[in-house]
């Protein structure tokens, strides 16, 4: 137990150091952009992981929370001059509150019906924002340029400060999940995922815990929305509520392996560069070849390794161990 904790802490530190070293090689704006996307989707994947990987509620509508968060901070900043940092906090709280209200009827839906519900939610909110004049309807809002720096949460010269901000958000999220996984909350989430009836028979208030999972997941996702709004300096329904955001979030987590802490980070670290590179090389022609390659990759993964990269690593690890034991046994027999 103790040794496990030390190993995990060492892994987290190593991870943070690697994260801090990346920028040395990432000197072009494009490579910096990829780094930013990797950390952003790692956080988004982890948020999805809380709700789907741990608590078993598969959402394909995270863009609803993401876009809402982006709009909350942007509206506060554009219309009331509120600092984007405070805006980010408000975005997190507002999306969590929204998710709790929405979650009440949603938490009664099981399995695929929940997933379908979240798709519908994502689309519905997008339509609302496309028609809401006060927040700029389909054209959205521009965030006015300010002097760059951490105070304004705007960086024009280099994208690296965004990367560091995202990395900090990721480390905070990972720390939260580390504690969650070892607490009553984490156990209750998993129990709900495994079997709702058994869980409630053992005293788990499933509605309450589902709502907590949804709210936390949505809150983190909303804060990521603020992050992207500050990164692009504009919000627009087609951009912030895009269904592809919801799909990408789920894919990153499933690809890496959900239900454990490291999976979505791995998924994002591999999928986001592929996605951005294929888009840069093949995209913008409007043919969607980039999406086809990306999609094929996902299909292969789902067919051959449904437990994601982490599942694959575990299996390889187990077979190596078995082989070593076999060799050890053979050696004993020989001598």
């Amino acid at each position, binding site marked *: 137990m103790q040794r496990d904790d030390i190993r995990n802490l060492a892994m987290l530190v190593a991870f943070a150091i690697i994260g801090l070293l990346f920028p040395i090689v990432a000197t072009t704006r494009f490579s910096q952009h990829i780094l930013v996307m990797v950390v952003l989707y790692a956080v988004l994947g982890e948020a999805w992981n809380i709700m789907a990987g741990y608590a078993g509620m598969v959402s394909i509508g995270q863009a609803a929370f993401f876009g809402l968060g982006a709009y909350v901070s942007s509206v506060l900043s554009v219309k009331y001059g509120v600092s984007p940092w405070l805006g980010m906090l408000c975005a997190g709280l507002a999306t969590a509150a929204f998710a709790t209200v929405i979650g009440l009827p949603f938490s009664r839906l099981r399995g695929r019906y929940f997933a379908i519900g979240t798709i519908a939610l994502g689309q519905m909110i997008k339509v609302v924002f496309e028609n809401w004049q006060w927040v700029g309807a389909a054209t959205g809002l521009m965030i006015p340029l300010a002097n760059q720096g951490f105070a304004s949460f705007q960086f024009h010269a280099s994208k690296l400060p965004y990367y560091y901000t995202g990395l900090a958000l990721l480390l905070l999220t990972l720390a939260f999940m580390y504690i969650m996984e070892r607490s009553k909350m984490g156990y209750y989430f998993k129990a709900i995922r495994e*079997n709702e009836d*058994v869980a409630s*028979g*053992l*005293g788990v208030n499933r509605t309450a815990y589902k709502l907590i999972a949804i709210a936390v997941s949505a809150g983190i996702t909303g804060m990521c929305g603020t992050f992207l709004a500050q990164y692009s300096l504009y919000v627009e329904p087609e951009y912030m509520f895009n269904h592809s955001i919801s799909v990408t979030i789920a894919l990153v987590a499933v690809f890496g392996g959900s*239900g454990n802490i490291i999976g979505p980070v791995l998924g994002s670290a591999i999928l986001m560069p592929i996605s951005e590179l294929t888009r840069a090389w093949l995209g913008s022609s409007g043919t969607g070849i980039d999406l086809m390659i990306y999609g094929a990759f996902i299909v292969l993964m789902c067919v051959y390794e449904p437990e994601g990269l982490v599942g694959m690593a575990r299996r390889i690890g187990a077979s190596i161990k078995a082989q070593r034991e076999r060799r050890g046994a053979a050696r004993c027999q020989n001598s």
Partner: protein
Amino acid sequence: MSELVVKGLTKKFGGLIAVNDVSFSVKSGEILGLIGPNGAGKTTVFNCLTGFLKADGGSVEFNGRSIYNCSPNAICALGVARTFQVVQVLQGMSALENVMVGAYLRHSRTAASRRRALEALERVGMSRFADMRAVNLTLPAKKRLEVAMCLATDPQVLMLDESMAGLTPTEIHDASSMICELRDAGMALIVVEHVMEAIMPIADRVMVLDSGIKIAEGLPAEIVRDPRVVSAYLGDKYAKRVKC
């Protein structure tokens, strides 16, 4: 001293009255056997008492407090736990983690919950399987695990739904002595069982359901000779033969 009092419990599935005006009670330190042919309504009684199904009438009081149609988690929190006829465990989690979910009800901290869970696993003789994933356990082991999960919630009333079905005679013997120990420690138990050899020796009282109706209640020795019970199980012909 705790007591579960059920009065006039009724549950309908469309036109079928699965539980029809059933009344009974069970106290600390007592084993109530609940028997009856297939489809008699035994599991449905459990489901209504533990909040998994909404009853259509009657009252259920636990220590003077109504738990009628409360939520399953609230009922468990008050001290009434149950196992499922078709064994239900948290497949993807280890045996220890399964029991810890139950233990968290009274112990919010992980270390305390783990300690309580290990005790409960020990109680049912499952300590050596603590780290095994529940999905990989054998059926008898899963049944024991389910009991450990319930025990970890520190129940005052424990309902076992055919926990001994499919066990070997030695396993039945072990399970029986564990059930008796729990009773002697002051728990109230309701035990549904088809294996008469298992239930009759340990039950303090036996209640018989047939087609949702309570047809008899009494000491085990009286019940096995009751003509209504014999006819419910074997048909009228045998009942007459027993009378002669």
